């Protein structure tokens, strides 16, 4: 491999002369390699970073604090109950004995999204106007944000109670919160499901379902 040519083999006394070689090296393969590695690192770094869905839960009431009697207006409230097999039950209002409980799904065309859009249409159209103003540069982004928060938190904005029973999955919850985000619902709470509501659900879903074993 790397022996030194002693220059023997006959020629006596001949001075060994190294051949003059050009010092230029062909860098093409090195450039190829460089770009190959760049491609690799570029493709591995641009892996999508996960998104964050922020949530603020209501503070746990302190037993010493005076009881807050502020109630959500019944007409603005919507109660959504998530349950097994991605089914959703909902009714308008906070809950009384004679609510009209209905079943729906996560379907985008005639599922919960349309229910929310119908109920929240005043807010959605207001935000739509703002968005158009933002697009035509009538207002700036900061102003837009501020106004949207005002609309979403306004007194006439709807309030959604999200309840999930034991058979619901984490995906259902996130999907529901996502629907609220899509439909510009700013006021919502995750609360525990009422035993009374469970009874009502089991009442409406009667034909398809066999009563759960105790």
């Amino acid at each position: 491999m790397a022996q030194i040519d002693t220059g023997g083999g006959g020629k006596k006394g001949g001075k060994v002369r190294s051949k003059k070689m050009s010092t230029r090296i062909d860098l093409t393969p090195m450039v190829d390699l460089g770009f190959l590695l760049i491609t690799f690192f570029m493709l591995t770094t641009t892996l999508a970073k996960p998104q964050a869905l922020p949530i603020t839960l209501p503070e746990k009431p302190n037993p010493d604090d005076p009881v807050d009697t502020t109630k959500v207006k019944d007409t603005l409230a919507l109660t959504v109950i998530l349950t097994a097999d991605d089914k959703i039950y909902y009714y308008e209002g906070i809950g009384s004995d004679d609510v009209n409980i209905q079943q729906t799904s996560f379907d985008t065309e005639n599922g919960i999204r349309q229910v929310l859009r119908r109920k929240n249409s005043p807010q959605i159209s207001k935000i739509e106007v703002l968005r158009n103003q933002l697009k035509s540069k009538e207002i700036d982004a900061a102003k837009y944000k501020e106004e949207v928060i005002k609309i979403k938190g306004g007194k006439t904005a709807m309030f959604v109670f999200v309840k999930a029973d034991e058979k619901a999955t984490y995906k259902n919850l996130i999907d529901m919160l996502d629907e609220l985000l899509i439909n510009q619902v700013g006021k919502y709470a995750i609360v525990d499901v009422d035993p009374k509501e469970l009874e009502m659900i089991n009442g409406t879903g009667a034909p398809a379902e066999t009563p759960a074993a105790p």
Partner: protein
Amino acid sequence: MSKAKIPRKSTNVDMTAMCDVAFLLLTFFILTTKFKPDEAVVVDTPSSVSSIKVPETGIIQIMIDKEGRVFFGIDGQDTRIAMLEKMAEKKKIEFTDVEKQQFSLVSNVGFPISQLKPYLAANSTERSAFPQPGIPIDSLNNELGDWILAARQSNNDLKIAIKGDQETEYPVVKRVFDVIQEKNVNNFNFVTDLEANPYD
């Protein structure tokens, strides 16, 4: 009139400059790449239209896999050591400096703290086979709460991110919410994949 002679030029291009550029870029990408930390379980997150990115540093990550096992992770080696010291104090377990050093390299914990010593003593192949039953979250032995408290005591600016699997059952998630709220944290994030907003 003599004909204009076009001198013959070599077709060889000097590649040195290009090579320089290539390696400059390569260096940049190598230095900026952050490889995904190895996670104890595969968690398939649901998607949302939220456009907010998860911050890279300063988060407590609580993973819930589809069997309902809870894992606790935090970034920053110094924070990890500080957290472990707080935890050791509380649980009355002594950790040596070597163990602390080892712990600072662990990205996720998914077992009761009583198992931490044997885990830290194990080598990497044994670790991958180490049983990870999840951190206890029941009210009698609420270690997740202790971890959160210890983490927040060592760095108060930490944000909590919950990374749950799509198939995780709701009661487990609910219990985790409760544990977090018991520690007076009402603000947290769900880690999700990106999804297009249909009304944008």
